[in-house]
């Protein structure tokens, strides 16, 4: 089998050092309903252990109570580990008057390459007009937007968004999560070229990586783990042992996100 490399490395618990891996969906911080006991040092050690070169990351504090403090936390992280992290600016649409100023503040600080929105945590649908400054900013700066997307109804929001903002790359975090939602997300990706599907999630359904790659294309699917909210390692195993060719694995693991972020 051409990709025994992945199987052997994973079974031996060894880093996938020959592959560029960019995790597009990471976090730092805590949550209220279960113990997350993984600081930045432990996160980097986990990345080294399995071969994740870099990650796009947002603060769990931003997504919950304090978007400014959380964004500052990410800025410090990016500075502490040069080349390992790309910051995701989190804004809270419930403070609409501060969206633009926070985007500008973070962008001017440096270290941020994406915007992260969380319609569920912030209780504001992705197509709410409060997000208008976000999509305009993304379009101006030519950066992508990663959104938490869970369920069919949330996926549906992006049919209009993808059409209204054709020069914004929307990464569907979790690609809808549930299987029917993921199927719809694939339809969405087939209709609009500015949609990218993120495999992050806690339910690692057998066959869904293969489905997404087959139906949406190997260039449209990106790796994500949700670490430190979730563990990186299962996500590595899920893609590494998926029934897709080595070339597709390399694209999913990192080459696609390299392209999305405009990295050389």
């Amino acid at each position, binding site marked *: *089998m051409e990709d025994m490399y992945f*199987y052997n490395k*994973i*079974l*031996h*618990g060894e880093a996938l050092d020959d592959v560029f891996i960019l995790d597009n969906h990471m976090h730092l911080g805590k949550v209220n*309903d*279960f*113990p*997350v*006991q*993984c600081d930045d040092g*432990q*996160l980097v050690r*986990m990345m080294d*252990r*399995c071969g994740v070169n870099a990650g796009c990351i947002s603060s769990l504090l931003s997504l919950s109570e304090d978007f400014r403090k959380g964004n500052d936390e990410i800025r410090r992280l990016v500075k502490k580990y040069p080349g390992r992290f790309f910051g995701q600016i989190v804004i809270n649409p419930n403070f609409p008057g501060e969206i633009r100023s926070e985007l500008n503040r973070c962008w001017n600080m440096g270290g941020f390459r994406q915007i992260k929105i969380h319609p569920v945590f912030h209780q504001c649908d992705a197509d709410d007009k409060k997000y208008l400054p976000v999509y305009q900013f993304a379009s101006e700066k030519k950066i992508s937007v990663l959104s938490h997307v869970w369920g069919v109804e949330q996926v549906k929001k992006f049919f209009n968004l993808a059409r209204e903002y054709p020069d914004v790359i929307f990464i569907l975090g979790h690609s809808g999560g549930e*299987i*029917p939602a993921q199927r719809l997300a694939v339809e969405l990706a087939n209709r609009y070229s500015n949609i990218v599907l993120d495999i992050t999630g*806690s*339910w*690692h*359904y*057998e*066959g869904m*990586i293969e489905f997404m790659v087959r139906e949406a294309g190997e260039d449209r699917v990106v790796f994500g783990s949700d*670490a*430190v*909210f*979730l*563990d*990186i*390692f*299962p*996500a*590595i*195993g*899920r*893609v*590494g*042992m*998926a029934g897709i060719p080595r070339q597709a694995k390399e694209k999913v693991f990192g080459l696609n996100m390299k392209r999305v972020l405009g990295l050389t």
Partner: protein
Amino acid sequence: MQQINGITWFDCNCSIGFSKLPEDQPVCNASGLKEHMACCGISEALVWNIACRNYDPMTGNQELNSMLAGSMSIHPMWTIIPGHAGDFCKPEDLPGEMKKHGVKAVRVFPSAECHNFSLKPWTMDKIYRVLEEYQIPLFIGLEQTSWEEVHEIAAGYGKLKIIVTGVGYRNGRMVYPLMEACRNVYIETSMFKVPCELDRLVGRFGPERFLFGTGYPKYSMGSAIALVSYCSMSNEEKGLIASGNLIELLGA
């Protein structure tokens, strides 16, 4: 048993059989399972039959016996129900029937959506006592019960080995006190995708009460393997989780 990096992988949580909702529960037969196991480096698996949960346990168990007849690498796990209504064997007859068919573990689906019975002693006392006496491990999915219920059973039947499967990432504040309070509770690892947590749990409790499982064919084998293989614990500890603990429980 095949060893990879000194570790043998024995999946404690697989299913086979036909499913009426393949998107929710993929269809998988014994040969398909074996093929996928070989691909992923898994040597053996303990399996239950979908028909046991979705149709009828007795019929499903019989079907499972014939599906796995002669198999050296895939082992049957029977689904049991309390047989007060006469639709299952008496508790005292269970060990003999299991031995006849080479079955060493049982599973229950008590939820209202499945077999609709109580796990409380007023229903299950005789069964628990038989399982205790014969040291037959009892598997139950967390989605079928509650932590309160697991604790009640484990505390009430101290020699009963209870393996909780499908323990998701949000359960850390339940798992720790339960593992402390009840030494007869085991956790199947596949869904416990919390960073550094399996290493931390093993550091606190030792590796003996964690069992490698995948949830295949619904969930990815690769995901479950990597959750264990990339841990920082020793290879010896990984080996116990990957297969040693299950082998010990099955009395193999």
